């Protein structure tokens, strides 16, 4: 399979704090790859570095054979990467429709945008019912759906998902993860960051375990779910 995203010895600092310590990571086209680890291990930092919100001090990130590290966040979207940020971060004072339109900000192909809007409403029928509603009035689960729909509106080839299960009821988490699988089946590659390692491993092809800024384990999702260390540390025994 073709390598889509490659992080090569990437180091990221927050001021003096060395947050990401020489990460090597690969995502192949068509995969769901998950990044699991404890709070503060550097999972979100890794995603934020890929999406350009943070700049690596050293190391390179390559996407579809183009070096993207060092590009500003608004350019990364144009390469075909879209991020659903932690905590959803929807534009609460705008309507659902306006949020989705902003997701398609970099695009000019009107017909393509219409097609993708249909696709988003198919994944998330509840958004279609509420398109004129102010986004801040949506429930937590609906806001997560909106954040994902908004990210899909840029028609990304790689979707970065940061803690989609955060703060949601178990039933909703199941629903959201089903939709993530559907999105992947429809052709979008996914890099998923989760604290809910059980759920993440259940839908992923491969996984990386991150500990204090370093990758300590990697392998197929199956291998990791059966690994004694991972079970103890992240899967509750």
């Amino acid at each position, binding site marked *: 399979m073709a390598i889509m995203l490659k992080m090569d010895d990437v180091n990221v600092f927050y001021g003096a704090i060395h947050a990401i310590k020489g990460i090597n990571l690969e995502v192949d086209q068509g995969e769901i790859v998950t990044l699991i680890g404890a709070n503060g291990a550097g999972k979100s930092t890794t995603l934020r570095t890929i999406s350009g919100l943070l700049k690596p001090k050293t190391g390179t990130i390559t996407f579809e054979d183009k070096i993207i590290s060092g590009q500003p966040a608004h350019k990364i*979207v144009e390469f075909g990467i879209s991020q659903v940020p932690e905590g959803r971060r929807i534009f609460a004072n*705008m309507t659902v429709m306006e949020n989705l339109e902003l997701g398609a*900000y970099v695009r000019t192909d009107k017909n393509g945008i219409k097609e993708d809007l249909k696709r988003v409403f198919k994944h998330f029928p509840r958004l279609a019912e509420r398109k004129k509603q102010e986004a801040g009035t949506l429930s937590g689960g609906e806001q997560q759906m909106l954040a994902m729909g908004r990210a899909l509106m840029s028609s990304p080839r790689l979707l970065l998902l940061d803690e989609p299960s955060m703060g949601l009821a178990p039933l909703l988490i199941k629903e959201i993860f089903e939709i993530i699988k559907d999105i992947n089946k429809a052709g979008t590659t996914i890099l998923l960051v989760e604290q809910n390692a059980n759920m993440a491993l259940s839908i992923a092809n491969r996984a990386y375990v991150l500990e204090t800024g370093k990758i300590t384990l990697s392998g197929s999702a199956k291998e990791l779910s059966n690994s004694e260390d991972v079970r103890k540390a992240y899967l509750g025994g």
Partner: protein
Amino acid sequence: MGIMDQFLQQLINGISLGSIYALIALGYTMVYGIIKLINFAHGDIYMVGAYIGFFCITVMNWPVLPALLVSMLLTGILGMLIERFAYRPLRSAPRISVLITAIGVSFFLEYTMMYFVTPQPRTFPSILDDAAYHIGPFVINNQQIMIFAITIILMAILTYIVQYTKVGKAMRAVSFDNETAQLMGINSNRIISVTFGIGSALAAAAGVLVGIYYNSIDPLMGIMPGLKAFVAAVLGGIGILPGAAAGGIILGIIEALVSGFISSTFRDAAAFAILILVLLFKPTGLLGKNTNEKV
């Protein structure tokens, strides 16, 4: 003149003055909304706009409308340059540094202008005849009609831009959450620059209108209206566009009523007393609301 007539007359005067405050306050509130900066140089941008309009009318002999448009364009560009060179380098600096810089920019504009045009006030030529019209109990003159018309047109255009255009939606997105806006592919620096441009152009329009209304301009003319527009923006709820418009008009009306019925000595005091009252009883402003985020 009966007390009712006098009241109605002051109401008209107040709305004229208030329209001008509103135009300045819109720029204040837009800039605050997008980078959380109280741009203390905004009143001086309005002064520059008045001078550009003045030179277009007196030196170039242009009619009002082209003078107004050219002044808005050039002042808009000035606003973008100020943002680019004075504020953008401080984007990640503490907010107080940017605030102090804004005060510096304010002095820079005032005294650079003074160097070129002398501190002497200039007299704006009267370009409209003083004809006044009686509409029912109201008496309204040409200048006031022009101020109302131009203010309403500019506010309509601004509302259209902010609500319905792509750049307007991007402005709202950046102002709500700059980082997430960048994840949408929005170049937030460019959007901030556009915001300064639009805000400065509106201030320029106010400057030209004031020149026509009061006939006199000088390099320090921006200080007081700048402060008043700030009060108007806070009164309506800083960062909220309809709030700035409403705040400006309300402030203008109160000032006119205080000058007409009490004494013009208390006019400015009234404006700032309102600021204090608003901050005491509704710190978010008349149209402001406390935002609750769902987690």
